[in-house]
């Protein structure tokens, strides 16, 4: 019995709607996921293992980890700083700053890569200068990192700002009246209050950094074993009709996505000890 009988749908309607939603999402979202694992395991574990232990695949995995290891901390520091000044202070241009931080979300990944080519490519603004000094950004690790930085730019700030705005600034003000310095306030008062949201933002940022395709595709140059990240490796294998290999790498990335989702769900339910207490 519903606690609000006057506005409850009849039981059959509720069951129908829930069933419909489950069915449609299973067809639309879960079936593709199942297809990845099925295709990868079409010929058993052997080929999967072979595809993943291929030197090019290992190089791609290492490069992906390296790019994420640089991009995620940078965007975490920037995101925390941005969230701190937007959520804890009033200043003219605050709304504009927030809008600019979120801007990369509405830019196509391909454009996120393109802009770096326009700056640092052979015919880019700084291309000739870079060439004269024997520096390479595009088609090399720095380009991959920059493109990844652009697409994952807003994740941490976006997760933190609503929470920090909701928490207000009175806890920080209390710390100030008790004699705490700025860093003491941040590390002892603010950070513990936002840690699970921060972790969730970092995980999302990381998932996107490891899985990004369009932006890195533009700046990569696709040199096997050198500038190929995992998603790019998938494309190459697919275009060479090595379907099992392509799906094996895809399955690995899909696992990363599932782990991220599970961790995020756990964090949203209040962190390991249920102490988010927002």
């Amino acid at each position, binding site marked *: 019995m519903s606690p609000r009988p006057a506005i409850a749908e009849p039981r059959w309607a509720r069951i129908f709607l829930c069933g419909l939603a489950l069915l449609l999402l299973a067809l639309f979202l879960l079936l593709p996921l199942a297809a990845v694992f099925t295709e990868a395991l079409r010929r058993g574990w052997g080929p999967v293992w072979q595809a993943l232990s291929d030197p090019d695949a290992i190089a791609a995995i290492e490069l992906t980890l390296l790019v994420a290891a640089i991009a995620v901390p940078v965007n975490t520091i920037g995101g925390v700083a941005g969230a701190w000044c937007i959520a804890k202070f009033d200043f003219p241009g605050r709304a504009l700053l927030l809008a600019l931080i979120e801007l990369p979300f509405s830019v196509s990944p391909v454009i996120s890569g393109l802009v770096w080519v326009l700056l640092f490519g052979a015919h880019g603004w700084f291309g000739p200068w870079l060439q004269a000094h024997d520096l390479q950004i595009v088609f090399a690790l720095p380009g991959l990192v920059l493109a990844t930085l652009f697409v994952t730019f807003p994740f941490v700030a976006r997760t933190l700002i609503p929470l920090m705005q909701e928490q207000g600034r009175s806890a920080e003000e209390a*710390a100030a*009246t008790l*004699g705490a310095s700025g860093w003491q306030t941040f590390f002892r008062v603010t950070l*513990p209050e936002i840690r699970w949201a921060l972790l969730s933002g970092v995980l999302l940022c990381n998932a996107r950094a490891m899985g990004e395709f369009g932006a890195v595709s533009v700046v990569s140059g696709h040199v096997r074993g050198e500038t190929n990240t995992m998603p790019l490796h998938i494309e190459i294998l697919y275009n060479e009709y090595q379907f099992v290999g392509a799906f094996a790498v895809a399955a690995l990335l899909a696992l990363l996505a599932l782990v991220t989702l599970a961790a995020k769900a756990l964090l949203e339910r209040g962190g390991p000890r249920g102490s988010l207490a927002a």
Partner: protein
Amino acid sequence: MSLALRGLRRSFGPAQALRDIALEVKGGEFVALLGPSGSGKTTLLRILAGLDFPDQGEVRIDDQDMAQVPARHRRIGFVFQHYALFRHMTVFENVAFGLRVRPRSSRPHEAEIAARVRRLLERMQIAELERRLPEQISGGQRQRVALARALAIEPRLLLLDEPFGALDAEVRKGLRHWLRALHVELNLTSLFVTHDQDEAMELADRVAVMQAGRIVQFDTPARILDQPANGFVAGFIGQAQRFAGRLTPQELVFDGIPLAPLPRHRLLGEAAAPGAGQGPAEAFIRAHEWRATPGPGNAVLTSARPAGGRVQAVFALGDSLVEAELPPGLLEPGEPCQLDPLTARVFLAEAPFAAP
């Protein structure tokens, strides 16, 4: 400890929150900042704490100008309206915070900190709560934790923003007496903000009544009640009803209500003196300052309810309703009577402040 404010101004964009505030508080005093919301009292408190800064003016604490010193260097205790306890810290950790963040050179040993925290918690009668998180204790207990936390740094001055605002009426009463006793016992100098006149009158040695960014009167509760400085104070304090009228050389004539004029010698306030001028005025009459005579007259009793030995009555006079206290059994609802004011506090109607 002494506190002196001079020429304090603060505006937020076009809105002037504080206009030329001056205030002197002596060591050991318990002072209330009383006013309606938007009168600037919280802004003033935050400026004292170093959480906000004045556009102009001096904040002298022990004869040192602190107006531009940030909160962390002031050693002023602040109890926030909603307590602002650190939610991820236990009660003990909350109270210890101010000692633990001190620079190493002046930080007490952990054992000393623990001893001081426990002493405070005991003094606040919440020793058994030391391991709880703020979300696990009641509102009144949270308030005590907030107070203990503020007192842990041995503040020169204790500031409380609406200290009872977030509590039930029941808890409120008990805590008031307790806070007053604590203030005396610890020999504190305290300022608190409230919009509740009963609270201010009951607790404070002196009350600063604020209106539109100014302190319009700063005096003991008794004198504020007896001699309100202007119409605003008279209307805000003591549940007085306001009437419009005119002062003639001889008497106060009421406008728009069938009340007999009051001769000058019956009036209170500055306008009561014979040479105090004349013209449009506002009169404030409290509920006990009426006399009702049964029989045909200017009023009809519309309702009455008993209140502690007296009767709180509402009369219809022409188009107006007047609240008055009567002895019990004098009149029945529906009965006519003659209603006369015994006295009135009168203030000549002039713009109370010229806009600066």
